[in-house]
């Protein structure tokens, strides 16, 4: 069991979630409530990662952040760092790749809140931020939790992009999925089997827990 790789994977999933939670809530909410010119184009773009092969995204990330030109060069000159071959790069790739998995369930959850309820909250004297905190978030919570579960599991298993933009660097970009691949290539079937099974168990536990959580909150919030 490569504990380092497992810890890295969990860290990657967690950090991705930290970013996707506010992004998903804000974007999901915006798309649920507003009509605007260009909305369908935006929704198409946001849904792209669903059908895009991970290698395509990986390719574009490599091109965009290659430190020899353009954005990548600017990043190196300004911050002294790149966004490929390191953990930050994986986080960025992960956020992009999980956008539809975060936004769609959250958008549905917010859209399911009857407009009248938000209006009633405003008429109670709640300013918009309070309406979000006290009314919308509690009612949308099951959808938000589902979105987070899916994103966590999805990131945990992400392989193609990590391989392309990661560089297979231990403790930096060698996630557990990569580590399993690595062990197979090292003829270490035992380690590969142990890690795969552990990952399977871990995924099942995570998903069961969060489904339980969302079912519980659905019962209260009916």
């Amino acid at each position, binding site marked *: 069991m490569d504990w380092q790789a497992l810890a890295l994977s969990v860290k990657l999933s967690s950090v991705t979630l930290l970013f996707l939670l506010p992004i998903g809530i804000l974007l999901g909410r915006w798309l649920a409530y507003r009509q605007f010119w260009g909305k369908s184009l935006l929704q198409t773009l946001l849904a792209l990662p669903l059908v895009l092969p991970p290698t395509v995204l990986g390719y574009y990330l490599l091109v965009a952040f290659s430190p020899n030109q353009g954005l990548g060069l600017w990043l190196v000159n300004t911050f002294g760092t790149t966004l490929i071959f390191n953990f930050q790069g994986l986080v960025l790739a992960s956020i992009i790749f999980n956008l539809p998995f975060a936004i769609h369930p959250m958008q549905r959850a917010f859209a399911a809140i009857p407009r009248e309820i938000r*209006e*009633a909250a*405003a*008429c*109670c004297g709640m300013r918009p931020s309070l309406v979000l905190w006290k009314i919308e978030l509690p*009612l949308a919570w099951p959808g938000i939790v589902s979105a987070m579960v899916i994103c966590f599991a999805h990131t945990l298993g992400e392989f193609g992009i990590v391989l392309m933009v990661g560089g297979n660097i231990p403790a930096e970009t060698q996630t557990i999925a990569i580590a399993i691949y690595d062990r197979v290539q090292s003829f270490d079937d035992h380690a590969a089997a142990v890690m795969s099974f552990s990952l399977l168990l871990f995924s099942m536990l995570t998903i069961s827990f969060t489904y339980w959580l969302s079912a519980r909150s659905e019962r209260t919030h009916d």
Partner: protein
Amino acid sequence: MTDSAIQITLQQASPIPLSVQLECKSGELLALVGPSGSGKTTVLRAIAGLYQAQNAQIICQGEVWQNSMQNIFLAPHQRHVGLVFQHYALFPHMTVLENIQQAITHLPKQQRQTQALELLKKVHLEGLEQRYPKNLSGGQQQRVAVARALARQPKVLLLDEPFSAVDQVTRRKLYRELLVLRESLSMPMILVTHDLDESNLLADHIALLHKGEILQTGSPDFVAAHPKSATIARLMDQQNLFTAQVIAHDQATQKTYLRWRGTLIEATYQAQFAINERVCWMIQSENILLHRRGRPSNGNKENPLQGQITEYMESSGLAHLRVQVDKQLDTTISINVPLHVAKRNALGLHEEIGLSLLSEGIHLMPYQALRSES
């Protein structure tokens, strides 16, 4: 205009046409009446700030809530409105008590609970504090919605067809409660409804809305008896609506004479209509006398008509009759009489009876083509 607690002016051509000028005094209930799609709910939402009309001015108890010319627009949470939604819009994840407490923003935490409990008592819902909205009946939910609206200590109370979602028995109970509650309220109240009986019962004044335009305002009785046009008469559900021609005015006797279907009709003096001008006229059921069988009286002499009963229906202690007075042209007059009167006169289908139209009940309006007349 100046002693009104709330004054509303809305003008816009699109996307929803509006031409509204309203006012309401403290303690008074104004009903916005009209068919579906007339814009009543839009007007209410504009008052609450949930809809921003293009050219508008809304002033409530001295506060300017909206003034398009000065670019002032207060958001709903900045106005002190109490709005009771048609489907109540209670927060499903909060108890009844918590729902009400959300609107009590002006008190510290400890006192909020006490205040909320008092409001619950006011709407006769003691004991239900910890229930969730899904476990309440329609009538109970409505009361919570009212309590929550009042908890805001609103400067105006707005009700959007709040009785439409409950059964009739519950509705009657809620009417009574609202009337009692009114006594203790000192703010203007605006009720949106399409139910004329409801507005007759609850409102001090009504404003009749049709395609976004206020056609007439006044007390319910007055608008019903003196509609400004045949359209308004229709909207007020007047059954007896006909056309006629003005023959003469007699200022001395205070009478105006009309020719209707070849018959001469006497109405009260309404000289604003010219001789030979075509007009519409209407008469309410309470201004039609039934000739009692076998006991003629002087009252029979005013605009007497003979006819045959073509429809006869009994309901809630009344007999609803349609009397055909013109065999060739199928003109019928509607009249409602108490059931005991109908029984005493042995009224029923195909019976021949006599009617008298009281001249003070004949109200003239400008001419417009009526669909019911051939």
